[in-house]
């Protein structure tokens, strides 16, 4: 790998962020919006894990005697951060989907354009 390709994973993170936001802006369905938000969040996973990657390294799980402690491993800290991030994402998604179901029940629609709040 050479040159700009070495920065491709980070660029993927930027792309995911913008693509997810584009989906949100063009959205016509609440469930679609929730999933676009998940795409935006996945940009954080990609960025964190790409930063932690080390070439020709294994997972940070040691298994003596084949993989003795101290072998070349990728970053365990960003993996822990990503685990936390995933939980956060799952919980916000579940809350938003519950709200979506309830809104559908009360108003019969899940199109955000028909859910405008009345102005004061």
């Amino acid at each position, binding site marked *: *790998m050479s040159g700009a390709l*070495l*920065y*491709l*994973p*980070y*660029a993927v*993170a*930027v792309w995911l*962020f*913008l693509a997810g*936001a*584009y989906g949100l*802006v*063009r959205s016509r369905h609440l469930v679609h919006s929730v999933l676009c938000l998940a795409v935006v969040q996945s940009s954080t996973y990609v960025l964190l894990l*790409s*930063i*932690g*990657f*080390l*070439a020709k390294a294994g*997972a*940070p*799980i*040691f*298994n*003596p005697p084949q993989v003795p*402690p*101290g072998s070349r*491993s*990728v*970053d*365990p*800290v*960003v*993996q*822990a*951060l990503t*685990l*936390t991030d995933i*939980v*956060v994402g*799952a*919980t*916000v998604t*579940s*809350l938003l*989907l*519950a*709200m979506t*179901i*309830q809104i559908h*029940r009360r108003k019969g629609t899940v199109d955000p354009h028909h859910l405008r709040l009345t102005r004061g």
Partner: protein
Amino acid sequence: MNDRARTVLFLVSAAAVAAVLIEGIAGLSPFGTHQTAYAAMLLRVAVLERHVLNVATAVNFDYRGFDTLGEEFILFTSIAGVLIIFSELRGGKTLYPEPMDGPADRGRTAAIRAFATGLAAFVAAMGMNVALHTSITPGGGFQGGAIFGSAVVCIYLGAGYAALDRTAKKSLLDTLEALGAAAFALIGVATAFLSGAFLKNSLPLGAAGSIPSGGTIFAINAAVFVEVGCGFALLLLLYLHQTCKTEEEQR
């Protein structure tokens, strides 16, 4: 804003943001070439200090255990939020909706029910297995709990919602979930006063490579498994109940 104006505004802004962000990420080290000092140090010392072979677990439950406490309570709070959104207010108390038969409860044969029950038992055991091996494999309390919670779906598919509701009592699930969450925080309080710092690992560490290793890592992991397992089961129960309500309304 009309659709066209909004899309144009977004595309122009996104182009600017993309340019700015690319400029920023160009300052990072190239992919795969750099390991931070923090990571290098933890990889060097974690096994010795905590007798745990999975360093990510050590980071999650010990070195940065306080983050995990917050994360578990985010799960807890969002389940409380979903409970409120799906609840019905009767007599001033938030109560669970009444159970009812689901859409496809009719027409299941005994063979399907038996198979689904067996599958559910297997999935639950699998979840517990993953959670127990937290120190030595890429498992952990959260992962195991998520698998355990999905046993609920197996029972629903095989036996229907009413049977599921009889098996998995919501009140028991939410009590266990709260207990798991509180246990994590209480471990922290106990270690603060008994061993000098909040969430300080002061239990016997065990032998690296065995299941009960890591001291408080193991205990916290168990609490997280209980919380996440019961929490996900409860969440799935609440969502599956909504399918019954929708069917009821469509009739």
